[in-house]
């Protein structure tokens, strides 16, 4: 559809209606969840019993608010820790990957590129169980031959971080190499020509150019790690990240605490997404 060409009013109406329906379909469940976070009832459903903030701040009786629910808060902390580790790791490795695939020429590069992209076409559950089986086999083998108990290879936070890192790196690699492809290499050559060392040229020319992509990739990595469920489910140990904790809570029967938590999450992740939009916008103008 080309906006500058006049369209019959009928088609325009249908198009607008379609877009409106699509956005209603996307946002209606979220709005319902958000609204019922304020419901003064033990169940996150109709009937409406009046507005309350107990599910955020309440501390006694059945009304344990989210800010007093130590287990959920702890799982938020665990998730944030995992997401931070995954972000740092995957942005670093993704940058290296981007340089490797954009700059270097070596035999077998195409094959290696396909291998690097393959996590995109592997279901998350499969990734989870294969890492679980692999690390468990290593741990068992080491224990049987030398007698060391490598505890970090058992299901736990380390494996969760490794598992999420495995596929989020692919995403960050794609984001960063798309930016690196637009980089004019003669800028770097000019810096080298003017007597900069390789290191100095990298840190003063290339990395500042890549910065919007680095920040954007970091935000995407953080959000993807935070909301990841499939891979985490297979690798989780005793410290449950947020998604697992919420899932367990939901199986026992949900209270509006989960709604309140979801509302807060929506606000935070929406804010992060807006931030990444602003970072990307800088990229276009500069």
């Amino acid at each position, binding site marked *: 559809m080309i906006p500058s060409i006049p369209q019959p009013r009928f088609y325009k109406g249908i198009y607008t209606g379609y877009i409106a329906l699509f956005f209603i379909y996307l946002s209606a469940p979220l709005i319902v969840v958000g609204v019922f976070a304020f419901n003064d009832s033990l169940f996150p459903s109709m009937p409406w019993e009046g507005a309350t903030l107990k599910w955020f701040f309440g501390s006694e009786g059945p009304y344990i608010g989210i800010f007093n629910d130590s287990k959920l808060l702890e799982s938020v902390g665990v998730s944030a820790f995992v997401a931070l580790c995954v972000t740092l790791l995957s942005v670093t490795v993704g940058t290296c990957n981007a340089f490797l695939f954009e700059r270097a020429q070596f035999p077998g590069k195409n094959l290696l*590129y396909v291998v690097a992209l393959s996590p995109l*076409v592997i*279901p998350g559950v499969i990734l989870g169980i*294969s890492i679980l*089986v692999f690390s468990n086999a290593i741990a068992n083998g080491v224990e049987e031959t030398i007698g060391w108990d490598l505890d970090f290879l058992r299901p736990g936070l380390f494996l969760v971080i490794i598992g999420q890192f495995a596929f989020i790196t692919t995403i960050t690699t794609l984001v960063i190499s798309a930016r690196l492809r637009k980089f004019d290499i003669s800028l770097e050559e000019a810096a080298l020509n003017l007597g900069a060392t390789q290191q100095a040229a990298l840190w003063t020319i290339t990395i500042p150019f890549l910065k919007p992509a680095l920040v954007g990739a970091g935000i995407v990595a953080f959000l993807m790690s935070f909301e990841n469920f*499939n891979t985490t489910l*297979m690798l989780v140990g005793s410290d449950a990240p947020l998604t697992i904790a919420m*899932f367990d809570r939901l199986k026992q029967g949900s209270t509006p605490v989960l709604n309140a938590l979801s509302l807060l999450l929506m606000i935070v992740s929406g804010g992060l997404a807006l931030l990444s939009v602003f970072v990307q916008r800088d990229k276009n103008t500069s």
Partner: protein
Amino acid sequence: MPGIASGCIVVFMLTLGNYLTPNLLGGKDSLWFTEQIYTQFITRFNWESGSAFGFLLLVLSSLIVWIGLKLSRQTLSETVS
């Protein structure tokens, strides 16, 4: 066309490998492949058959993606970059 192909691949993989949505919304009588894998692995500790299921899912999904790429005359590295 590469955009459409990569969109299809991403949606297909996200749907096929999803555990949470079918589990929560699928009701009691439904039987899902990912749920089956999870049950074999975590609940029953039957890692052999879980691995077999997982391998089956992996092969099937790779095959379908490969056929899709062949039919639309794309390659994986072209599609995503």
